[in-house]
């Protein structure tokens, strides 16, 4: 497999488009004949990250790098940032609005789902600047 790169932009607050990037990237991975079990893990982590950008940020981008050994995803938004990452990682902790929760999002399980499905996860955040989530799944 050659090195491949894909980029998606994610709109803030637009839940009708939430999942479009994940859906597109899943098709790419399928076409590349990536192991279906590995695709499942990548898709869970990517979807959670995509929804986080929609629900919590002012908008952002997803950068996907595929090489023969791994899939590396960088999800970057332009703010507002996470005040306490350790707290955000706790199961059940959520800052989601009532409207978002009513839809079944915002249960405080997203980041945990990400962590459980990847081989590497790093979250960096600066208040007022934005959040960068980097994750890798080995092939």
């Amino acid at each position, binding site marked *: 497999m050659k090195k491949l790169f894909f980029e998606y932009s994610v709109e803030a607050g637009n839940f009708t488009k*939430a999942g479009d990037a994940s859906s597109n990237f899943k098709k790419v991975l399928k076409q590349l004949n990536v192991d279906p079990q590995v695709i499942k893990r990548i898709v869970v982590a990517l*979807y959670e990250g995509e929804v986080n950008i929609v629900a919590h940020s002012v908008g952002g981008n997803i950068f996907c790098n595929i090489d023969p050994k791994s899939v590396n995803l960088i999800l970057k938004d332009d703010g507002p940032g996470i005040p306490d990452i350790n707290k955000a990682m706790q199961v059940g902790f959520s800052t989601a609005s009532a409207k978002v929760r009513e839809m079944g999002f915002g*249960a405080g399980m997203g980041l945990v*789902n990400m962590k459980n499905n990847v081989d590497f996860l790093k979250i960096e955040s600066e208040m007022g600047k934005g959040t960068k989530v980097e994750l890798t799944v080995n092939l």
Partner: protein
Amino acid sequence: MKILDLVTLLNLEVYGGKAGLENEINGGYTSDLLSDVMGNANSGDLWITLQTHKNVIAIASLKDLAAVLLINNNKPELDMLKQADEEGIPVLGTAMKSFEVSAKLYNLMNS
């Protein structure tokens, strides 16, 4: 068991995604929290829920679920149906509550 068989056995409504009615059901997952389904449902599961919006189909598609069953007479929103038709993921309905229909599915899957 095929979705179509389940529709007959439990007298379910079929709202959309008819192209997927031949899908095989391997099990079920009952939840209204999207990340719970994302993290814990298995491919081929029937997703039993009261959520009626489009994101349900996005998750069902990403997780390769067999179909979505709306409980308690909940009706799908229009954009949910449109997405279901595009993806070929059946959206079913019942007047039963989640406990009852989950129990019936469990018994059918294990009989």
